[in-house]
């Protein structure tokens, strides 16, 4: 064997091995690529938020991003825990998920029969976060969620429409049944996103920012002001009860908590995905 042949073979082995290693690395992504729900592109923008970023700034600005059109389902999450057994209910670290984590499933990686297309619930923030990261994505921030949640079928911001508001409040007034509806059955909103209202609460990336009012910074004991101020957080748009209920629910949850009405969907920066 001459030297050139040797080096060619070495190079081709190198290439093959590198490909194999890369394939192994991205296997997860490939396995999920066709199963993942398509994300809707949201152009972003500046809007009046119910949670002002500062005392003198009442609007939030969101950069373009992509959001799952529907919440993550039991079937989606089952694929995730099969690929990542450390997130199965009998193996998960207790610091990352409470005792009720996925307890409604038939088995550690098996949802109850017939619930595959229902939104997954009883998942902690840590688990939701890990799921999205495994898809090369992340949870949406509160402002991203709020921006999309303000849309009706025809309007980017329908919050001034009393009829639209009432339709959302009707869901909250409806007693929760035992079974959740399947995802994707409601009308898409302005951005092509479904089930934002009327299905489940949804985790947000910046869960830890929900209870911090902008004015407790550097003043005495932050926890004193936090607790004293929690009833008087500087909410705007007080007539928008649906959003306030969502914030109240989110801020009552710690990251390891799970709830039978708390699900999630994933988001990604628009630039990150062509």
């Amino acid at each position: 064997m001459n030297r050139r042949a040797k080096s060619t073979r070495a190079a081709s082995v190198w290439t093959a091995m590198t490909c194999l290693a890369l394939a192994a690395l991205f296997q997860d992504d490939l396995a999920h690529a066709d199963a993942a729900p398509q994300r809707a592109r949201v152009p972003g923008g500046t809007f009046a938020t119910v949670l002002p970023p500062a005392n003198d700034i009442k609007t939030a600005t969101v950069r373009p991003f992509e959001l799952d059109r529907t919440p993550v389902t039991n079937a989606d999450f089952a694929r995730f825990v099969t690929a990542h057994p450390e997130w199965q209910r009998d193996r998960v670290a207790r610091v990352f998920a409470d005792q009720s984590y996925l307890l409604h499933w038939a088995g550690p990686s098996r949802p109850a029969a017939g619930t595959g297309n229902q939104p997954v619930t009883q998942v902690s923030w840590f688990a939701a976060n890990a799921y999205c990261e495994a898809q090369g994505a992340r949870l949406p921030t509160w402002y991203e969620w709020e921006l999309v949640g303000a849309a009706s079928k025809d309007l980017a911001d329908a919050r001034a429409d009393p009829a639209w508001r009432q339709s959302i409040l009707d869901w909250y007034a409806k007693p929760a049944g035992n079974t959740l509806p399947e995802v994707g059955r409601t009308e898409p909103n302005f951005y092509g996103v479904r089930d934002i209202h009327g299905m489940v609460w949804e985790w947000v990336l910046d869960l830890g920012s929900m209870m911090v009012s902008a004015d407790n910074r550097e003043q005495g004991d932050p926890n004193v002001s936090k607790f004293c101020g929690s009833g008087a957080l500087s909410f705007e748009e007080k007539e928008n009860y649906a959003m306030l209920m969502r914030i109240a629910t989110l801020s009552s949850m710690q990251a390891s908590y799970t709830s039978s009405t708390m699900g999630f969907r994933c988001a990604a920066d628009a630039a990150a995905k062509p």
Partner: protein
Amino acid sequence: MKRAFLILAVVLVPILGLLAWTTPLAARESDTPTSLYQLQAALTNQDGKSHGLDVYRGHPVLITLFYSSCQATCPLIVDTLRVTERELTAAQRSQLRVLMISIDPERDTPAALHEMANSRHIDTSRWTLARGDASTVRNVAALLNVQYRQLPSGEFSHSTVIALLSPTGELETSSSTLGHADAALLDRLRK
């Protein structure tokens, strides 16, 4: 054929090694279900060295979140940690470690952390100033139940939590006291 195996081994071993090396640090099979060290945290300290949340495994550790450009609360956090240490015996103090993690990874580069360690005369043989990526910071904050958010000015609003972790990483107690040593925290430290 032998040579092919040799080539395979030569190529495969570094790749596997690299994979093992890039796998986030910290978690161990032996971790208890409530150990915070199960978090796969990617931190970098003031000297640019990478480590996990368990950099001080085997010691009681005070963990807190801060950001170095903070003018009011954060200097107070360092002072509070010092006052707490001073209340201990020399033997207890020599066992204790302090891990301060920045919530401002963009500005708190290892160089910025190094600068803070120097200007505040921090003994980096027992204290570590660290930064992590945004995901690591969010996860650590969630584990310690720290509330924080970045303000439009670029500053942060955050609740102050000084948490005591056991040598195996369980959360023993946490305090939001600033300016003087927390009595309950001292109690646990003296045990």
